[in-house]
C-alpha cells in the first residue's frame, strides 16, 4: 500500500521546516519532484499553491493524490511509507525521546530561533518592497496567526522583552543540546534519526549565527554532531537545492575542528 504514486515536495530553502521533509526524503532515497517556493516573494500565498495547501503553510507534500502538511508529521510519514533506512529507533523509549526532542525544537526552541532570524534576515529583506504591495500580500495570507507574525516580522515590532526571551531560550536550548549530545552519539538515541534531521535544520548555522554560544571550545559535541550530519551524502544533496545565502551558511561546517 505504501507506494501510491509520485512524490512532490513544495518547499523553500533547505532550512527549518522546509528542510525537515527534504532531508528525510534524501536519507530514505525517495525520488521526488522538487517544487521551490520563494517564501520572501510570498509564493506560498499564491493561488497555484493554495490549490495544493489552502492554509498556505510551507512545506506540503503530495504522494499520489494524498496531500500532507505539518513538517514533523510528514517526516514520520516518509519514514513509514517508504523503504530505506529506518529513521525512527526500534526501541520504544528511544522513539519517545526522538518525538520529545522534535516537539521541544518545533514548539519551544525553533520559534525563538526564527524570531531572531526573522528580525535580522526576513524582515529587513522584505521591508525593501513597496508598502502597499506588501500589505496586499499580507492580506492574502489565509491563517490569521501567520498574518500577525508577518506583520510583526516586517515592521520589526518584536518587543525588547520578546527578543530577550528568545535569546534566553536559544542559549538554554544550546546548553541542553550540548548536554544530550554529550550523553549519546545522536540526539534521540544511538542511531541517526528524525530528531537529528530536525535538529540539523534548526542548528546547522549555529557556529555562524551564535558564535559566542556555539563553537568548538564551548560546545564540542554540537560541533561534532553538526559536522557528522553535514558529511552525509544526503545532507550535501539536500543543501544543493538551496538558492540563497541562508542555505550557503552550511559551509561553515567545512571548517576543521579547532
Amino acid at each position, binding site marked *: *500500500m*505504501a507506494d501510491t504514486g509520485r512524490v512532490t515536495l513544495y518547499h523553500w530553502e533547505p532550512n527549518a521546516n522546509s528542510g525537515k521533509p527534504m532531508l528525510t526524503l534524501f536519507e530514505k532515497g525517495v525520488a521526488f519532484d522538487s517544487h521551490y517556493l520563494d517564501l520572501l516573494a510570498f509564493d506560498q500565498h499564491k493561488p497555484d499553491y493554495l490549490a495544493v495547501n489552502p492554509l498556505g503553510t510551507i512545506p506540503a507534500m503530495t*504522494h499520489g493524490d*494524498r496531500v*500532507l*502538511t*505539518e513538517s*514533523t*508529521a*510528514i517526516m*514520520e*510519514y516518509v519514514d*513509514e*511509507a517508504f523503504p530505506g533506512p529506518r529513521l525512527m529507533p526500534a526501541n*520504544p*523509549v528511544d*522513539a*519517545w*525521546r526522538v*518525538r*520529545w526532542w522534535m*516537539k*521541544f525544537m518545533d*514548539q*519551544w526552541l525553533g*520559534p*525563538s530561533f526564527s*524570531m531572531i532570524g526573522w528580525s535580522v534576515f526576513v524582515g529587513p529583506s522584505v521591508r525593501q518592497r513597496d508598502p502597499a504591495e506588501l500589505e496586499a500580500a499580507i492580506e492574502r495570507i489565509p491563517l490569521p*496567526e501567520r498574518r*500577525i*507574525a508577518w506583520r*510583526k516580522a516586517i515592521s520589526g515590532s518584536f518587543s525588547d522583552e*520578546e527578543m530577550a*526571551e528568545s535569546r*534566553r531560550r536559544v542559549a538554554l536550548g544550546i546548553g*541542553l543540546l550540548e*548536554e*544530550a549530545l554529550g550523553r549519546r552519539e545522536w540526539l534521540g538515541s544511538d542511531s541517526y534519526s528524525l530528531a537529528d534531521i530536525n535538529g540539523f535544520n534548526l542548528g546547522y548555522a549555529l557556529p555562524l549565527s551564535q558564535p559566542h554560544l556555539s563553537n568548538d571550545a564551548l560546545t564540542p559535541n554540537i560541533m561534532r554532531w553538526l559536522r557528522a550530519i553535514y558529511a552525509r551524502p544526503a545532507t550535501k544533496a539536500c543543501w544543493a537545492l538551496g538558492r540563497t545565502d541562508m542555505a550557503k551558511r552550511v559551509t561553515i561546517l567545512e571548517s576543521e575542528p579547532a
Partner: protein
Amino acid sequence: MTTTLYHGEPNGPSLTVLAAAFEKQVDLALERIDLVAGERHGARVPHAMEVEQSIEGEGPVLVVDGTPMADSVFIACYLDDIGTGAALRPADPYARWQMMAWCRYAIERLAPAAAYLGLHAAPPAAVPEGIASIDLAERWRDAVAGRFDEGKLADSRTKVAQAADKIEAQLADGRDWLMGDFTIADLETYAWLAGMPALVADAFKGKPLTHGWLARVRARPSVARALSLAATATPETVWAPGPEINRWG
C-alpha cells in the same frame, strides 16, 4: 521491568496517559501526585531534563526502568508500542499521519487555550518550590496572582470553539471516533476538552455530533476507569499550568 506512572487528577494529560495505559493493558504502578500543589517538582517524583523542560507544563511522568518520560501524546505512543491491547494508532502510514497531525493541532492550539481557561476559572493557591523551567514558573506566578490577559482569554475561547468546529466537521460522515478507529487523538482531544463545555458553553451549541462523541469517549471503559481514580467529584475542573500560548500569536 518496573514501570511507574505518577499522575494527577484524571484531566488533561494525566487522563490521556491513564486511559491509554488501561486501553493497552500495560502493567504499571500508579502513584497519585498533586499537580496543582506542584508535587511534580518535589522529591517524590524522579527528575530528568525531559520532565523539567517539557513544554506540556504540569503533566504526568512515566518512569520506565529509571527513565522519566513526559509529554502525554508521546507517552501514549510508547504505551501503544509496548502494550497488548488494541492498537491506539492506525497502521496505515497516511492514516497515522492524519492522527499525528491532529494530535499536533491539539497540543499546539487546543491544549494551551484549555489550560489557560481552566486555570483562569480555578487558579492554584501557591507557586511551588523548585520549578526548573523559567517560563513554566512564570505561568505559575501569573496564575497564582490572578494575572490573566483579556486578549489571551478571548483568543483561548476562540481556539476552543475552533476545536469544537473541527470535531463536528470530522464526525460529519457518521463515524464514532475522530480517525475512524479509536486512537490517541480521541483521548488527547477529549482530555483537554472535557472541562470546556462548562466554561465556553457557546462553543458547543448546535454541535450534536461533538456532544455524542464526548459522551462516547467518557463511557469508554478505559476512560471511565481513569475517571474513577479522581479524588474530587469534578476532575475536569482541576487545572495546573499547562503549555504556553504560542509566543508568535
